[in-house]
């Protein structure tokens, strides 16, 4: 039965003290065999299962998650969504995603709190200006709403910003009005609920230990809940992708690093857009609760501890305070880290591999959240048809052999 959320539903449940809401998804024991198993119950994985069932009409699908749904990087990012990437390949990929975001709450009948509040990418020097103007032009050619904003316009959008009396004055910015933020948990929950409705088994607390293969074909997975056989396995395990790939004998060009974020105490609304800066390397937005959500770059070493070092936080906050002196005395409430898998060209991999029936969706690095619906949609297509969609075709594994990289290192404005 389709679980609908409506005002009547809310009123009805209010009378019973909100105790009779139905469970959003089942909690099934794994079956012995599935046609398709998705490893990783974050937004990308759950979304993939949803689109497999919804758009490709496939049945007998499971999502296997080692912890709880959305407890990995889906719940650890700074929820920024944008599509103003330089290269055509990336622009198409992220714009595909942004278009799905715009309709996601309606499609899932679940409020993902998608808020198109715009994103500013600041320029602090002559080189930044040239680079950003180039990107704005490239975006326009790809039909993406991207504009050059001068200091006066920035001041109007973000009055609290210190644009002049600082070491790196703000000289301009790119502005994408359709960009914004969304509630990350809701994305995972929304996809999970609708995937479950379509018959997908969502199995939590079930850790994959090994991907089993036989004669160059995938055979199934070994988990803490026993062996699950599968015709096709899609791995969407972010930081732990290389660890899993290795069990199938595949080496991926990924490095796992901690990426930190932090939130402040809640305050009244002061900043109603997302501001990112590549050069001083910090970004900030304000959540609906009023907390400042602050992020930065990765820590500079490989690690699987979801922590990171204080020096990275210090660098980030130094930049934040320089740009917004008004935040100088604020207290930070929480800090955390997630393990991101970074590709040599800072672009993702959504691809088949040399083992038949094994697919990877990884390498999202520091910017996977914005791509959640698009990535899931394209990965589902790749698994269902056993060949990539034209949008994700450039993001194959072979590009590291052919040299046809999609280099989004600097041009994407580092902070994703």
């Amino acid at each position, binding site marked *: 039965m389709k679980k609908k959320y409506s005002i009547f539903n809310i009123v009805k449940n209010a009378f019973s003290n909100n105790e009779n809401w139905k469970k959003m998804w089942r909690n099934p024991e794994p079956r012995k065999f599935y046609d398709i198993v998705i490893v990783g119950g974050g937004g990308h994985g759950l979304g993939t299962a949803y689109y497999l069932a919804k758009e490709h009409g496939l049945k007998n699908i499971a999502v296997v*998650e*080692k*912890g*709880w749904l959305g*407890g990995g990087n889906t719940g650890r990012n700074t929820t920024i969504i944008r599509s103003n990437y330089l290269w055509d390949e990336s622009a198409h990929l992220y714009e595909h995603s942004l278009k799905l975001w715009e309709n996601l709450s309606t499609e899932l009948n679940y409020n993902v709190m998608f808020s198109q509040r715009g994103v500013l990418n600041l320029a602090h020097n002559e080189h930044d200006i040239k680079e950003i103007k180039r990107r704005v032009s490239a975006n326009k050619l790809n039909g993406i709403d991207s504009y050059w904003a001068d200091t006066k316009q920035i001041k109007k959008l973000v009055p609290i910003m210190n644009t002049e009396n600082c070491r790196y004055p703000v000289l301009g910015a790119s502005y994408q009005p359709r960009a914004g933020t969304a509630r990350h948990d809701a994305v995972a929950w929304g996809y999970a609920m609708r995937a479950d409705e379509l018959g997908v088994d969502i199995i939590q*607390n079930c*850790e994959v*230990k090994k991907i089993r293969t036989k004669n160059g074909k995938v055979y199934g997975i070994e988990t*803490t809940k026993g062996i699950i056989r599968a015709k096709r396995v899609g791995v969407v395990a972010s930081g*732990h992708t*290389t*660890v899993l790939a290795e069990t199938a004998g595949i*080496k*991926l*060009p*990924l*490095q*796992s690093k901690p990426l930190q974020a932090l939130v402040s105490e809640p305050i009244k609304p002061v900043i109603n857009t997302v501001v990112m800066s590549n050069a001083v390397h910090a970004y900030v937005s304000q959540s609906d609760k009023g907390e400042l959500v602050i992020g930065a770059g990765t820590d*500079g*070493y*490989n*690690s*699987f*501890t*979801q*922590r990171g*070092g*204080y*020096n990275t936080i210090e660098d980030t906050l130094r930049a934040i305070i320089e740009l917004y002196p008004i935040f100088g005395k604020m207290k930070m409430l929480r800090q955390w*880290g997630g393990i991101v898998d970074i590709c*040599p060209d800072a672009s993702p991999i959504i691809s088949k591999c040399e083992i038949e029936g094994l697919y990877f969706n990884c390498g999202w690095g520091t910017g996977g959240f914005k791509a959640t619906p698009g990535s899931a949609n394209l990965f589902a297509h790749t698994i269902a048809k056993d060949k990539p969609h034209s949008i994700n075709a450039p993001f194959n594994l072979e590009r*590291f*052999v*052919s040299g046809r990289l999609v280099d989004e290192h600097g041009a994407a404005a580092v902070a994703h």
Partner: protein
Amino acid sequence: MLLINCPYCGERDQSEFTNGGEAHVARPKDPDQVNDREWSEYVFVRANPKGIYYERWVHTHGCKKWFNAIRDTSTDEILKIYKIGETPPLIKRFKNTLRSPSGEPDVGSGNFTVKKP
């Protein structure tokens, strides 16, 4: 934040150092004989283990010298530091008593994958 024992300067804060990625990656001896796939492995593919990891550091804001370290990437504990040119030491005893280094529950920690020698 790590406390790194530079073999030339002694213990210093991690912020003085820069990580140089995997150590002991050998350039193919006869580049003309190497095909695209092997080149790709040499250029792009690096070890990314959860567990023992041989890596390089450089003391950027100090003596500016490079050296090697062995670190457990599941706990960030530095197990051994040695100079460039020395044979990579084998770690015989490697304790990883922390079952969930980042406070994750046992189930779902992914720590079964921790590579031990």
